């Protein structure tokens, strides 16, 4: 096989079984003797538990076991938080090992958010468990709740955690405060912007689930469920929650129905199904439903930001400053505090060369669902702020927003570029992507397009946003500096069987990103064999080599290089064996197109299968060589990688209703070297819709008592097929130097600029009315009210 495999749009091999509905998700699993767990969750945002009466529930048909918080003492330790705001003092709920804690699996004396689990019920059927949950009587003393960071930080605010004075997890900052303040004071133009990047709910289609099994003969636990980081979760659960040896816990992830960040966290159900499987002596399954997901799976975004951008009248940006109040929710999620601080704050200078910048974040606990990652987490929040500020700055000095971006963008010759906030960008020509997007969008003709829309009663707007997104989490020492308790390397194992078939086992887990195809393509390319001969296994801690998890767009750019390195070890071994058989030195042997040969003697070539068989038999190997092909590589990248790009949104606002119609969306992205364009474009298209959703419709709403008003998909809108047009995609392909594949993160990068591009477009459409900023989501009501206020304010009638 000689054509290129890696980089080709190979149709994903996992798709046919998915299209036939044949792959098994957690909810589909059945085990002999399996019983079901349900939670009783808090019905208050904040309350003291006075008493819990489970007697009536325990007497109900099919009920096997009910546990509450105090029952878990001595069995389960609190969950840990493993990404703390780096380099600053921080406060957390306790954990017995002195680590930052993230709350107990079940509430002990107090509930702190609407989904806080109070009791876990095991029954023969799911319906019986749910019936019993309703029969549990909990006497609550309702406490005042706080749902916004600023209210939580105010004097006299209700306090959530004894160990967290003033509800402040940390005041984290980065950049040069004094220099930034001086630059702002000295600048001829300073523009203020106050915005609320509101709470979102990731909403993968598959709710979470967990199946716990315990083997009383061996003491072995198995957790099968929706974990996008099985190895990492194994470490955290075994060592820090269950207190059992690593070897006693196996975690398996079956098919996972989307995640977008949410399934990389430790949740109470994970240790509970294991503990309860041991207690009742039968497999225990928990399947969440949508109501449960909305009130217990981590939510995203949620920063209230106060920012200033400063510069000169001819368009040079000289300073950027942001104070952000981040809403962590009731408990720190597994990595929430790091997402809300470093991942956001270090990203605020975007694609621009801004000499003075400073960002501070008040990471704060409130009576809301814990905050975690939403696709593009941290970076999307930063980019929204930056790109709104740049547009506001351009409007203030009367300059074309494209021109302001051109003037301030980092130039390719400045790479690698220290963004002065902690990221060292690796490569790229940011302006090139901007020019490509503007050209495709017909930006030069925008006034004519605007006029023609106006004739149809539509206000048309163009919105620009450029971005650079830190991705590909690693290397390990670097993330330790950011406050992450863990490593960030990935590994891969390759076994070549005597018949020439290959098994690749990878440490990363897929939640819908076609890993079985793309990772196989790396091996097929290196070996020069048909992709069909390469089997790809993953997501079982008993079989797979270690990996740190699929998050931060790191699977292909950190896990992929491990695969290539392992494949190259195999090729080196094959070349050495061929050289031995040819009686020449290994340097004389070329391995290409699935064959090893000495140039000029191609007729004597040894095929991949010949060599696999020879190494399997081990009859005639070079001195000292071990028989069999079983090679593992571990890869820890040199640094993060930095995909980037520029997007243009074109919207039409209906003057009568305020409805926003996204009419065109142009996205030019650079995710480095692309393993499979069909897969990558799919990731990019999906990423864009996440951003469109946030811009136009998605918001998690709480009332003042902490009740979640948007508790299902009838109240929390996510985009439907008619909400988006066909997107217009293009790419440049600039390899990163930080890994041998040259690949950059592609799973979430394209979400990063979208909300900004769409909001900029709507604000551009409404600029003629004097509207300068609107907070998302830009629903017809929000837009209509703003238009109405603007025109009524001007004395016009609507």
């Amino acid at each position, binding site marked *: 096989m000689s054509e290129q495999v890696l980089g080709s749009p190979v*149709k*994903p091999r*996992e*798709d*046919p079984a*998915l*299209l*036939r*509905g*044949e*792959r*098994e*998700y957690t*909810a*589909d699993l*059945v085990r002999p003797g399996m019983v079901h767990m349900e939670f009783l969750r808090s019905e208050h945002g904040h309350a003291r538990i006075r008493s819990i009466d489970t007697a009536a529930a325990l007497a109900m*048909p099919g009920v096997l076991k009910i546990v509450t918080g105090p029952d878990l003492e001595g069995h389960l330790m609190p969950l840990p938080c493993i990404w703390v705001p780096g380099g600053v003092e921080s406060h957390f709920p306790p954990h017995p090992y002195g680590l930052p804690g993230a709350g107990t699996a079940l509430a002990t004396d107090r509930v702190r958010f609407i989904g806080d689990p109070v009791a876990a019920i095991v029954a023969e059927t*799911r*319906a019986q468990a*749910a*019936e019993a949950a*309703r029969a549990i009587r909990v006497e609550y003393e309702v406490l005042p709740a706080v749902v916004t960071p600023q209210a939580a930080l105010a004097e006299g605010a209700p306090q959530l955690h004894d160990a967290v004075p003033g509800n402040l997890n940390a005041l984290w900052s980065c950049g040069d405060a004094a220099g930034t303040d001086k630059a702002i004071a000295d600048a001829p133009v300073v523009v203020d912007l106050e915005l609320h990047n509101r709470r979102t709910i990731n*909403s*993968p*289609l*598959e*709710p979470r689930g967990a199946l716990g099994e315990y083997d009383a003969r061996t003491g072995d636990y198995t957790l099968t469920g929706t974990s996008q980081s099985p190895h990492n979760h194994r470490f955290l659960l075994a060592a820090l929650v269950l207190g059992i040896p690593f070897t006693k816990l196996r975690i398996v992830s079956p*098919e*996972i*129905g*989307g995640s*977008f960040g949410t399934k990389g966290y430790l949740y109470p159900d994970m240790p509970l199904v294991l503990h309860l499987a041991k207690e009742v002596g039968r497999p225990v399954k928990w399947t969440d*439903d*949508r*109501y449960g997901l909305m009130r217990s799976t981590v939510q995203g975004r949620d920063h209230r930001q106060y920012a200033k951008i400063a510069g000169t009248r001819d368009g040079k940006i000289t300073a950027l400053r942001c104070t952000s109040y981040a809403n962590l929710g009731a408990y720190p999620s597994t990595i929430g505090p790091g997402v809300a601080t470093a991942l956001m704050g270090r990203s605020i200078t975007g694609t621009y060369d801004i000499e003075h910048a400073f960002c501070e974040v008040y990471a704060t606990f409130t009576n809301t669902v814990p905050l975690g990652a939403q696709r593009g987490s941290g970076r999307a929040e930063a980019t929204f702020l930056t790109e709104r500020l740049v547009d506001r700055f351009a409007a203030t000095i009367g300059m074309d927003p494209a021109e302001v971006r051109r003037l301030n963008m980092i130039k390719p010759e400045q790479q690698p570029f220290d963004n002065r906030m902690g990221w060292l960008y690796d490569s790229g020509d940011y302006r090139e992507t901007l020019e490509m997007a503007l050209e495709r969008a017909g930006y030069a003709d925008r006034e004519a397009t605007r006029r023609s829309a106006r004739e149809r009663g539509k206000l048309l707007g163009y919105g620009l946003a450029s971005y650079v997104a830190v991705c590909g989490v690693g290397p390990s020492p670097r993330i330790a500096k950011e406050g992450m308790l863990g490593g960030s390397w990935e590994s891969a194992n390759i076994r070549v069987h005597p018949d020439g078939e290959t098994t690749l086992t990878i440490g990363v887990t897929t939640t*819908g*990103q*076609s890993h079985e195809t793309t990772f196989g393509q790396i091996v097929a390319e290196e070996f020069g064999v048909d992709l069909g001969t390469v089997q790809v296994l993953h997501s079982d801690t008993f079989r797979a080599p270690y990996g740190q998890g699929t998050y931060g767009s790191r699977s292909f750019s950190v896990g992929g290089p491990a695969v290539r390195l392992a494949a190259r070890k195999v090729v080196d071994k094959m070349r050495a064996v061929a050289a031995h058989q040819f009686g020449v030195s290994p340097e004389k042997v070329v391995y290409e197109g699935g064959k090893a040969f000495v140039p000029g003697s191609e007729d004597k070539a040894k095929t991949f299968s010949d060599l696999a068989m020879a190494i399997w038999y081990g009859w005639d190997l070079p001195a000292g060589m071990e028989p069999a092909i079983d090679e593992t590589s571990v890869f820890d990248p040199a640094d993060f990688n930095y995909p980037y790009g520029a997007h243009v949104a074109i919207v039409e606002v209906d003057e009568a209703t305020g409805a926003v119609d996204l009419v065109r969306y142009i996205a030019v992205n650079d995710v480095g070297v692309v393993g499979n364009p*069909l*897969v990558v*474009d*799919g*990731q990019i*298209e*999906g*990423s*864009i*819709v*996440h951003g469109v959703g946030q811009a136009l419709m998605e918001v998690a709403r709480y009332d003042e008592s902490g009740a979640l008003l948007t508790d*299902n*998909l*009838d109240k929390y809108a*996510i*985009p*439907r*097929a*008619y909400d*988006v047009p*066909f*997107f217009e995609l293009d790419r440049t392909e600039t390899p990163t130097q930080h890994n041998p594949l040259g690949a950059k993160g592609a799973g979430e990068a394209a979400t990063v600029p979208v909300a900004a591009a769409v909001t900029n477009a709507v604000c551009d459409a409404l600029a003629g009315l004097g509207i300068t900023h609107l907070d998302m989501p830009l629903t017809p009501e929000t837009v209509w009210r703003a238009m109405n206020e603007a025109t009524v304010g001007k004395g016009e009638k609507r």
Partner: protein
Amino acid sequence: MFPCLVWGFGMHISLSVNDRATESEVEPRALLVDYLREDLGLTGAKVGCDTGQCGSCTVLMGGRAVKSCAMLAVQCQGAEITTIEGANPATGLTDLQEALWTQHGVQCGFCTPGMVLALQQLLADEKVLTEERVRRELAGNLCRCTGYQSVVRAVLSVAGQNGGPVDE
């Protein structure tokens, strides 16, 4: 999701599921999707929201796409139900599934069986499909992975193959 109705006794239903006559005792409160998944082991229909919003549980009832989380099993007395298991060819893929594969119109796959069935009905009903029509018809099926781009492309490519003019 479990309404506290009279329970503990069953009602008898007879229906056809994937062209097989089926007789069952079901609780009156049992949802069609739970009956299919738990009693019959047909797990292709997924439960995404329990409220008829997401469409992951879509099955065909007499050839019409219905949300099986929004129906009781006892409502299906005498009905002809087709799940993805019954819609699949013995091996391989239907033209629609093939087109979805070509366009990579599936990522995590959770919404896919429901979407395939809803689209199968649409393609059976209509020979002429516009992009706008496809987008409107897909309103009952949420997907969080593909952004619908590849799905709409796939449907339009099949509609084109069916001989109808494709008006974009």
